[in-house]
């Protein structure tokens, strides 16, 4: 079965959008990622990824509320689409599958063997 490529960072953004559940707009996504990974993505990188995700059909956007802090400009909220959902699940399955097939890998067993 064919699935569109999902880059690492894109996957991260998509996951975050899923987590934020309807509250996912630019600044919020940025902050959440920073909190979770410890690194703050630049606004350019983030919106680039968002644009790509939208083009691939994994997210949809709609305009939302404007606030004074934004100088009266509206926010753009993103939500995951069905395709986006599917893409995340597939990715997780792939990773898990591979992970499980590595013999002896687990958090308890961190000794280096024969490398």
């Amino acid at each position, binding site marked *: 079965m064919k699935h569109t490529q999902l880059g690492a960072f894109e996957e991260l953004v998509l996951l975050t959008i899923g987590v934020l559940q309807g509250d996912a*707009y*630019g*600044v919020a996504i*940025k902050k959440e990622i920073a909190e979770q990974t410890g690194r703050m993505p*630049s*606004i*350019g*990188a983030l*919106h*680039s990824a968002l*644009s*790509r995700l939208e083009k691939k059909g994994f997210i949809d956007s709609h*305009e939302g509320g*404007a*606030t004074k*802090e*934004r*100088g009266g*400009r*509206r*926010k*753009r909220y993103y939500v995951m689409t069905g395709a986006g959902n599917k893409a995340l699940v597939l990715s997780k399955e792939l990773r898990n599958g591979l992970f499980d097939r590595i013999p002896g890998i687990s958090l308890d067993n961190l000794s280096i063997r024969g490398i």
Partner: protein
Amino acid sequence: MSTSNPPNPPMWAERFFLWYCKDSEADMLLGDMYEMYYERVEEKGVKKARWRFIRDVFSACRPFAWKHVQLPSYLNELAMFSHYLKIGWRNLMHHKGFSTINILGLALGLACCLLMFLYVQFELSFDGFHDKYDRIVRVTSVFHTDAGDQNLTYTPNIIAPLLARTYPEVEKGCRVMPSKMLISHNGMSFKENHVLYADSTFFDIFSFKVLKGSPSQALKDPSSIVLTPPLAKKYFGVEDPIGKFLYSSTDSNAYRVSAVVEQVPRNSHMHFEILRPFHGEKWMVSNEGFFPANYQSYALLSEAGVREKVEGQLPDLILKHSDEETASFLDFQLQPLEAVYLRSTHLEQEEGIRVSDIQYVYILGGLAFLILLIACINYINLTTSRSIDRAKEVGLRKVIGAQRPQLFNQFLGETVMVAVLASALALIIAYLGLPYFNELTQRELTLGDLLRPAFFKLFLGVFLSASILAGLYPALILSNFQPIRVLKGRFGHSSGGTLLRKGLVVSQFVISTCLIIGAIVVQQQLHYIQSRKLGFDKEHTLILPVDGKVRQNLSTLTQRLEQNPQVKSASVCTNPPHLIKGGYDFKENTVEEKPGKSVTAMAVDHNFLETLSLKLVAGRNFTPANSEGPGYAFLINEKLAEGMGWDETEALGKEVDLHGREGKVLGVINDFHFASMEETIGPLVLYNTVEDWTKQQLLVKVLPGDVALQLQGLRNIWDEEVPHRPFEYQFLDQAFARMYETQEKNRKIAYTFAGLALFIAALGLFGLASHTVMQRTKEIGIRKIIGASIPSILLLLSKEYLKLIGIAFVLGIPLAFVLSQRWLEGFAYHISFNWTWMLVALSVLLLISILSIGYQTMRAATSNPVEALKYE
């Protein structure tokens, strides 16, 4: 939330952002950035917040946010390439007539440029083959006289060696002198006209390749001789010429062939076929001094930069090696080799040296550019006027979704296609026209010269610029059509567009007018010069050169010649009358020291005046008794008498000194032209042939009659009296005509370019007229039905164009007038601008125009209206 008003983020960053960002993203992104900014103001302070904001602006500058990404359409262009090619080709084929006109016009313009480039490239390449090109200089003399400075290439024999041994910056010096030789070989006599005497340092300075023998030794032995391969073949066939001997006919010298040097390349200002060592002729090297100045001198500098420094020290050098008097009027200059060929028009030069004028480079360049301009104008005119035909296509394409840049590229591409075809045709035209062009410019250019990389790049550049220039405007116009208006059929010419087109036609014809008048002016001036009274009779006169051996037999020879019934008179002199060049000092021998004058002078015998039908204004001629002395006698011309302040009778009997020769003035002769008509007649002195060396030419005046027979008779006498020298002659009137070769050349050039310009302009007019007629077919049909007569229709159609021609004419005349006046003033004797020429120019213009538009308008006027209106 603080209630104070925090400062705004940096305005310039925001402006920059809004400039690059696409509208659909801008609002949202800026909102995000503002939100973060205010948060950061709270957390980290204004400065950090502002800095972060700027970083955000630059961070967001990525492809997803950019306005109007070009990439997709670029990729689209590539895919559309074959389609555009097909459509463009079809368009050309469907309108073969217009296509031919366009292609032909451009081809002619390009061919002109091609040929002109060949010429310029050749001219500029002169002497470039010498390895030490930038270090070689030619020494020129400057004589300060009361009439101004005289610049000459003639230098004395002292200066080159003196420079070499005085200044360390001058590595080597070399003297040369062109000459002729008579060689006797295997019993036959040969005249070699291209002999060059040169110092042994010749090959150290100049890079002429020595094919056999040693360059450094070739000119050491005074009796050696160096040949070029054709001459080696001529005298020795396939045998090795080194070590063999050639014999002189004039004296009994034997010359040993020491080397063979390659043939002089075409682009060399020096030309020779034989080299002889300079010191081979004792008289040339024996007295080292500042006079006489008969030679050309060159020097090799250690580096190009020292030229001015050395030049500046020359006045002191002259003073040191001569006296104050000499140093006061004599000076030397060092002319870099690169200036020798093209920038020596101010110098009086030796005949054997090739020289041209940088002006020709400019003129031919300018003319070719003009022609190309006219051709481009044609293209623009024709294509834009036909744009209406393509309007539907443009409208439809836009409806389907073509962008303006795409359409622009499509039409520009069509121009390039035409230009490519035109270039191919241009190459053919250039090839065919090359012989004529070579004759016109007196060069031997070949298309092979084209293949040099520098030249090729230049031509490519011109080709591209011309195509883009010509194609720009039509492409703009065409891509601008609005689909709605086009498809509804409600569009017309923009008034601005027609005005431009009319302006272009006018300028084409202004250029043509100037060229026509220019051609007429040159023609008339030349005719005037050639038919102007010279002051002596040049018809039926032969010039026979005389050398040392001939002089031994000279009196018998002259006697026998005069006895010949066909000969009216024969005379001995130094130079032929059109080439009297000797510069002498002249002053009156009185008690008080009066200043002298510079005059031209030569020696003649008592028959000179009669042979040339010169008149004595006062006094008397030489007689056979005093023709060869003893003692000097002088004849001066009216100009000199006037210059000395004497009237005719006063001059007689005056004691004068001509450059050391003292004697009396015997007579005054009428002024006659002894140099080119471009200069006024100067002061002239004729003195008697006391000195043997002055007898260098025999002038023989024959009666009008059978030339061939006369020549035969003269030849017989010559061969009997002076068998060592082949009979060789020149007709005086032909020699004169050759002086005006340059002007002839100018005339031909003017005519050729005028003709070309006219042709192309006419071509353009033809195309335009055809198109107009096509446009107005329906209108003409209706008019005919209403009852218009054929003449009235003709008038209607041509009226517009005739008006334009008229304007062009009116504008062109003053311009032509100014330009002609300036050119004519370069001649001492010239015609004045004749206003009847305007009529000639006008009639030519009208004729051409009528021919161009006539055919189409006639056809339209006589066509059957039914045909025109059938599809209504």
